[in-house]
């Protein structure tokens, strides 16, 4: 017998999370496969966290983000990051009007509910940093005035891991602001066949607007209510601390391979993402399975490796796997 408030929450979630299936189905009309990517994008949407997608070209990263934005009745901006992009091109600038003899604010494309920052690592750090205030504070300062950004505000960025020349890796401070970093993999053989058929037949598919902003707001409020037990909190902090002090968790061999561990944002985002996943799974409480499921996406961009690790071909994925296999599950 569940405690009354959890039972009520479970029932509420059963009712309110119905749109998740609709949204997933709508997106799958356009995108073949990539189930996990779609689920994680919805997690970002539900927990108000920005998402960075990394993958080789042609894996429907941009299409997925566009489809998600199209499914919801909200404003959408796409910013193609290029080497000559300027911060003012992102946030906006002051324009002088000779007729009125005064400056006018011209808001940039960042003033939208969904921002697709395409190929974000193609612009220099100053342009990437222009997104910092927007991502963290949900506001933009132009001249001496600060303008709040619309709510919900979500930055969904893509980057290509292959090309090194002409790219600017995201600074640690900025990459830490992304709640999730998704690594997109190739589709399966079966999925590839479906993609092939769709494209040969020139089927131009796009998602329909099936959700209202109020649906998202309501869902977000319920996600916040999802019960997170103290045992799960301890589990989350143990995972994050193991990335900082591996020797304390029987991971002494990784002590010299980790340059820096996950920040406190990792703990916050792990909890938020786990709550959102519990909501998607129609549960009013978080279980360790939820934490483990999102751990890679939350931690992979928050753990810095040393040169020794790179020399030994050890990746952050290996470190996270070891951490999850060493930290005791409650």
């Amino acid at each position: 017998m569940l405690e009354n408030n959890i039972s009520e929450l479970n029932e509420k979630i059963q009712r309110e999370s119905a749109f998740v299936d609709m949204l997933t189905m709508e997106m799958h009309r356009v995108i073949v496969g990539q189930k996990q990517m779609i689920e994680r994008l919805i997690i970002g949407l539900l927990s108000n966290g920005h998402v960075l997608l990394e993958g080789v070209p042609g894996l429907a990263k941009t299409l997925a983000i566009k489809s998600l934005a199209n499914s919801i009745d909200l404003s959408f901006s796409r910013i193609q990051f290029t080497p000559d992009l300027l911060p003012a091109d992102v946030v906006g600038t002051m324009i002088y009007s000779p007729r009125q003899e005064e400056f006018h604010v011209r808001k940039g494309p960042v003033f939208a509910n969904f921002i697709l920052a395409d190929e974000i690592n193609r612009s220099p750090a100053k342009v990437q940093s222009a997104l910092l205030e927007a991502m963290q504070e949900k506001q933009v300062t132009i001249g001496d005035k600060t303008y709040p950004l619309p709510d919900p505000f979500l930055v969904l960025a893509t980057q290509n891991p292959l090309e090194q020349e002409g790219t600017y890796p995201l600074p640690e401070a900025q990459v830490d602001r992304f709640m999730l970093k998704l690594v997109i993999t190739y589709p399966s053989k079966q999925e590839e066949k479906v993609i092939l058929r769709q494209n040969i037949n020139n089927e131009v598919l796009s998602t329909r607007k099936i959700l209202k902003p109020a649906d998202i707001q309501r869902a977000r409020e319920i996600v916040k209510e999802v019960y997170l037990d103290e045992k799960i909190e301890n589990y989350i902090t143990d995972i994050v601390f193991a990335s900082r002090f591996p020797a304390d968790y029987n991971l002494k061999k990784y002590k010299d391979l980790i340059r820096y561990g996950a920040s406190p944002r990792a703990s916050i985002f792990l909890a938020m993402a786990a709550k959102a996943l519990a909501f998607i799974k129609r549960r009013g409480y978080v279980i360790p399975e939820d934490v483990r499921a999102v751990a890679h996406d939350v931690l992979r961009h928050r753990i810095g490796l040393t040169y020794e690790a790179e020399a030994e071909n050890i990746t952050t994925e290996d470190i996270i796997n070891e951490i999850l296999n060493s930290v005791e599950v409650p």
Partner: protein
Amino acid sequence: MRMTMNMNFRHIFVILFTLIVSVVFTDSRAQKAVLSLDSSSIKIGERVQLRLNVALPKTATIYWPAIADTLTSKIEVANKTKVDTNSTSRQEFVNYSQNLLITSFDTGFHYIPPFTVYYSYSGDTSRHLLLTDAVYLKVRTVEVDTTRAIRDIHGPIQAPLTFSEIAPYLGAIAIVGLIIGLIWYYFWRKRMNKPLFPMLAKVVGPPWEIALQNLVLLDDKKLWQNGKIKEYYSELTDILRQYLFQQHGIEAMEMITSEILVAYDSAGLQPEGRAILSSILVQADYTKFAKAIPQRSENELSMTYAKQFLETTKPVVALPDIKNAAKPPIQTTDPELKA
């Protein structure tokens, strides 16, 4: 005239002899007392060494002057050493010395009066005395540079700490550190779910037997009866997870429920145990993470299931087949029957 000259020579000879004898005698007994200053000029309040040295024959007994806290009304004794003795270049003499650390808080020329040292020889009841010279000490005031701004009075200067002064604090810090260390060790062992004294922890039997004992102990604790349902299910699942690791090599302590069940399947254990394990773990997850309050019967059933799970999955000892072993080999020549 000749008589007069003889008389004069005799007088001169006597006087010279007396002088030579007295000089030789005096030299062999060259007692002396010397008072000296390290510096004859000091700043007000500064300290200076005043040395009193007395050289006497070894056979003499010395009566050292008693030195009070002040030498004069303007000279104070800040510190004094014990009277020290050391040998001199002359074998039969010994040198007595004492160092006084003196200071003065009055400017001007101060007179330090001579010191009187008494001594006597063995078998001689009379006392002899030795007088040192007087010395002068100039005490200067601090020159004030009137061209510079007035500054605050300098605070007291901290004297360097000695080991004996800080030893009690060091001891206290060491004791506090030891206590903190012991507390940390206690909680660390508790968090790792390991015995406090690993060397003393004794293994009482195979893992399934230990798990069974732990289940009995858990039952005795009456946790759920006292409202500690979460603790009850945490301990119950921990016992089973540890058993799975120790008995079957499944690292269940670091696995989530679904992973434990997958690992159980992969380990090729009894299929009937899977359903029991799944039911216990799912029930425990509800209680631990979803504030579920199981009914009394469910709590009891979980314990029964746990014991049943151990019974189902414990290794079976293969007993020798006595029936077949006792059967004698077939003694026949018929190849068909033999086969």
